[in-house]
């Protein structure tokens, strides 16, 4: 679904934010990008969205070499990728429903289809009763759920989340991770950049660790830190593991997932 081949990104000014990164992410995977601040996680996210161009290397998304995509086709790439950010990026003058509907309106979806899709996705993120509220009448967690609803309403192949829990307290973060997990179970490939140890350790999904722009570890079912936790007997009874997050604790099914 996503393949990076020796990708290097050098910003103007000389910062090397990605250094010879090669990665292969298959359809339906859930991948954490972890690493200290400034290690280059957001840069990878921006490269996947074609907000930045690679300096060297190739990126394939859904079988297409996006480093060669002409500028006018970039919007179509983005329609197949949902994005969630730390700062939500909601429009403060629009209600919850309008914010979500906006994502469909601006790609020219017919009005009739929009209404039902918005209802469905708000139900999915548990905001079916708050559709008429404005963003500043919501808690941070609720705002992030709106932003996830907007990212997912078009049923993208891929969901990119850059520090989606960065502004949220741990309990609220759990709720967000449940939704991302649910979206992933519907078949959507999820890539999430984070430096939140607790979440990574609790989820036990594939972990790609980045440091100074380089991939330093790529581990299935990994934790935030290298090996240590992984080798503990029976999968580390760390406190984080008690969060009701592990893939088996919760097997919701998504409505209308046939698309």
């Amino acid at each position, binding site marked *: 679904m996503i393949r990076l081949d020796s990708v290097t990104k050098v910003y103007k000014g000389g910062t090397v934010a990605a250094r010879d990164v090669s990665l292969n992410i298959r359809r339906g995977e859930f991948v954490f990008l972890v690493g200290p601040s400034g290690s280059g996680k957001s840069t990878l996210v921006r490269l996947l969205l074609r907000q930045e161009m690679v300096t060297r290397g190739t990126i394939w998304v859904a079988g297409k070499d996006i480093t060669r995509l002409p500028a006018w086709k970039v919007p*179509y790439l983005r329609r197949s990728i949902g*994005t969630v950010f730390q700062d939500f990026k909601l429009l403060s003058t629009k209600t919850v429903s309008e914010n979500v509907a*906006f994502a469909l309106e601006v*790609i020219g979806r017919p009005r009739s289809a929009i209404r039902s899709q918005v209802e469905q996705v708000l139900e999915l993120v548990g905001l079916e009763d708050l559709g008429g509220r404005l963003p500043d009448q919501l808690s941070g967690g609720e705002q992030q759920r709106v932003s996830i609803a907007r990212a997912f309403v078009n049923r993208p192949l891929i969901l990119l989340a850059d520090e989606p829990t960065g502004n949220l307290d741990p309990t609220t973060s759990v709720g967000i991770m449940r939704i991302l997990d649910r979206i992933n179970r519907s078949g959507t490939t999820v890539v999430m950049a984070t430096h939140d140890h607790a979440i990574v350790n609790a989820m036990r999904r594939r972990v790609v660790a980045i440091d100074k722009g380089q991939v330093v570890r790529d581990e299935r079912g990994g934790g935030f830190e290298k090996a240590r936790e992984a080798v503990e007997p029976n999968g580390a009874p760390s406190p984080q593991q008690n969060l009701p997050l592990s893939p088996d604790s919760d097997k919701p099914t998504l409505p209308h997932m046939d698309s």
Partner: protein
Amino acid sequence: MGRMIFLIGESLVNLRRNALVATGAILAVFISLTLAFGALVVNELLRLNTIGWQQGTHIIAFLKDPDQGGLDAASQVAYRDEVMAWEEVETVHYVDKAGAYEEFKEIFSSRPELIEVTDPLKLPASLRIELQSIDLYRDVQFRLSADPVVREVRSFGEQIEQLSTISRVLNVLGWGLSLVLGLSAIILISNTISLAIYARRNEVSVMKLVGASNWFIRVPFLLEGLIEGVVGAVMAVLTVWLAARNLNSLGETIQLITLNIPARFFFRWGVVLVLFGATVGVAGSLLGLSRHLREVDS
């Protein structure tokens, strides 16, 4: 269809949000096109009143009709060739009686009553003479006046010189000012677009993120500029048209010159100017978009 309504709605929201700057841009288009259109109208008035001169005629010799002791039509043509052979004369154009009546009708197209009472046969044939140099008009005029087949000679030497100076100055002023103002209108419109982009940077950023096509993002801004340009142009056309109509009613009292410009002229140039206003609006928008849309991060 729904998409079009959405886009038009967005551009109207833009216009309302920066109403003051938008008004400035509209006024700039309005003033510049009013000046340009005014220059065109003055030009047309001069043309209508000086049709003979504008074609390079410096002297008109009206010829006697045969029953007044003049030449018949065939001999008049031969006479034209004779005059053409004069050294000072560049060229001579012969207008027969029918041609004279046609010209009369054009000049006084706004005064049907005048045309009605005029007998087509009374208008004389004439020679329209263009000189090698305008300075030579006295000699030629003198020689023609002495010829018995000529009824009357009119020379426009001085008037031509004065009028062509006035019309040149008016034209340069009108077009120059409207060019300068037209350019500033483009810049003002591009500023309203920049402001609109700034006011809507969050929306634009989200649109880019969720994959709105480039044209979808641009169209509301282009429409905004287009509306500003067209509104300014329509105001200019209406203003000049109303002014010319008032001028026309004034002209009724002045004999022999016409201040009436046919509606056809206004319609043709009105359409041209509105299209021009639309172009100015779109050009301003494109300028604003090219300067600022990229800066909105996505």
